[in-house]
């Protein structure tokens, strides 16, 4: 079975036409994981038995001529910050190494209701903090295109699983680019939906006002199919938007798509990008130009403040969210087993359980929220957040979709940490503003990338996933 050519779309067709069974395909993916994952390290845990059970359930439904959902039988990997009831869920951290989830995440409930096949949990930077998956407490994940390079992060395991055909689709989470960046580095499609579109219930929270779950897939149409399958209001998530979704982004009307105006923000097309990204973006813009799309230069003047804004707000919310990890709830690390005082359980569990990056961000967050500094830092950042959001609102008066780079270059080498402040700035600046404004955005692999994968980003108006998915499917089709 050639998994390379399989898509969610063609899998669903093939199931209905009885070209293969769900069990066959699930077995093929499990085989692929067995043969490749020792090298790549995408998975932290597998669910072989329940995966095969789910697949055979789908086969039975087909044999009984019952209707099946588009995602039925689809072998999917989940980032290990999403709870599956009864399974270990670690968030990539020692502090949750033995933690067994007591309920299903909202997206997991949806996928289970559709009888998707959940293959296993993928590796991530600890608590989704990082952009290379190197901050995982457990293992490194390698980029399937070059095993000496990172797959990106924090959803590196999910991106690598799809890139290496060890899953037909995967879910990740994106707080400041953690779906889009690994998608770009690993040569797959990765999308972050509009904030509030996909339930955050059962997603181990990093920054509650920024996190969103989204799909990794091989094609834009597949991303649309997964997005359609997981979106929707969840009463267990108070930030989940009550909304009727009537559109079908997986079936775009290209004649309508052609009318979309594409904006190029001048602040995003600056010096410092590596040659491959510059050339790749130029070719992509030319593609849309030649196809007759209207392209317009726009400005997002507060772009450069997005980094500071994000690095105040995100740690503040992190420090608040991670306070629940106290060695009382969920799990306790061995170092905190014996304690004379209650306080010592907290100090030792959190001291031994959290990695360096987590500690750094918790302390920073505590600082910006502390008395005497709250207004100057957190209050100020929230106001700047408004300015950044207004930039986009104004730009979307002139254009429908914004096109930009995702990263300043292709995947870097494992262990290669840059000290160059410009490079560090550029590595975050294209993705972060989108989360601050809550907009939908997608990273799509650039065709014919010379050596390593590169992505381009499409940012849409709130709830206009159909626009970015439509433009992306147009790019794939022609």
């Amino acid at each position, binding site marked *: 079975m050639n998994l390379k050519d399989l898509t969610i779309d063609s899998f669903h067709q093939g199931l209905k036409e009885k070209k293969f069974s769900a069990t066959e395909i699930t077995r093929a993916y499990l085989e692929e994981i067995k043969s490749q994952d020792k090298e790549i390290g995408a998975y932290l845990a597998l669910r072989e038995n329940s995966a095969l059970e789910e697949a055979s359930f789908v086969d039975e439904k087909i044999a009984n001529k019952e209707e099946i959902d588009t995602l039925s039988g689809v072998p999917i990997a989940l980032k290990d910050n999403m709870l599956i009831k009864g399974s270990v869920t670690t968030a990539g951290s020692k502090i949750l190494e033995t933690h*067994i989830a*007591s309920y299903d995440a909202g997206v997991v409930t949806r996928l289970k209701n559709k009888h998707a096949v959940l293959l296993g949990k993928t590796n991530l930077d600890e608590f989704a903090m990082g952009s290379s998956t190197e901050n995982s407490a457990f293992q490194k994940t390698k980029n399937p295109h070059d095993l000496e390079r990172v797959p990106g992060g924090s959803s590196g395991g999910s991106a690598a699983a799809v890139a290496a055909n060890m899953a037909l689709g995967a879910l990740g989470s994106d707080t400041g680019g953690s779906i889009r960046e690994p998608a770009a580095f690993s040569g797959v499609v990765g999308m972050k939906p509009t*904030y*509030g579109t996909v339930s955050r219930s059962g997603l181990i929270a990093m920054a509650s*006002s920024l996190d969103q779950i989204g799909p990794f897939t091989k094609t834009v149409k597949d991303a649309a199919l997964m997005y359609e399958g997981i979106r929707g209001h969840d*009463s267990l998530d*108070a*930030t*989940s*938007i009550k909304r009727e979704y009537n559109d079908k982004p997986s079936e775009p009307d290209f004649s309508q798509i052609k009318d979309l105006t594409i904006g190029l923000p001048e602040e995003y097309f600056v010096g410092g990008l590596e040659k491959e990204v510059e050339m790749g973006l130029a070719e992509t813009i030319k593609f849309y130009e030649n196809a007759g799309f209207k392209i317009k230069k726009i400005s997002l003047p*507060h772009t*450069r*403040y997005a980094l*500071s*804004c994000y*690095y*105040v707000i995100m740690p503040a919310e992190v*420090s608040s969210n991670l*306070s629940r990890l*106290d060695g*009382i*709830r969920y*799990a*306790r690390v061995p170092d905190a087993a014996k*304690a*004379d*005082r*209650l*306080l*010592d*359980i*907290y*100090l*030792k569990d*959190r*001291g031994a359980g*959290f990695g*360096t990056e987590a*500690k*750094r961000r918790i*302390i*920073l967050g*505590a*600082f910006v929220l*502390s008395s005497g*500094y709250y207004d*100057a*830092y957190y209050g*100020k*950042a*929230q*106001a*700047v*957040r*408004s*300015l950044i*959001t207004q930039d986009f609102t104004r730009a979307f008066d002139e254009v429908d979709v914004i096109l930009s780079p995702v990263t300043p270059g292709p995947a870097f080498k494992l262990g290669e940490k840059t000290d160059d402040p410009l490079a560090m700035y550029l590595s975050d600046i294209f993705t972060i503003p989108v989360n*601050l404004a*809550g*907009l939908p955005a997608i990273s799509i692999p650039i065709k014919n990338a010379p050596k390593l994968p590169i992505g381009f980003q499409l940012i849409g108006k709130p709830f206009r996933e159909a626009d970015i998915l439509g433009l992306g499917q147009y790019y794939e089709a022609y």
Partner: protein
Amino acid sequence: MSSPSITKETIKHLAKLSRIELTEAEEDRILKDLGNILKHFEELQSLDTKHIAPISSGMGRMNSFREDDACENTNQGGGVELFPEKEGGALKIPPVFE
């Protein structure tokens, strides 16, 4: 407002607030990082936000309500299954005070 002076004491205080036991080396490292990051944040002060209402979410916040009806708690006891010592339905912990 320029960067406040962050000292080792600040870090120790924040670590205590955050209930994290830091090693000496970790304290030093975080002190240095915090100093660098706060310098970076000075740029936010240059923006005039006097007339801007702070927002906590790009999408605008709405209250999420439900009917005030009694409903079944479906996850009672969830999250403390691994707690090492229980007694009569309660979790047994070491003394809070010495």
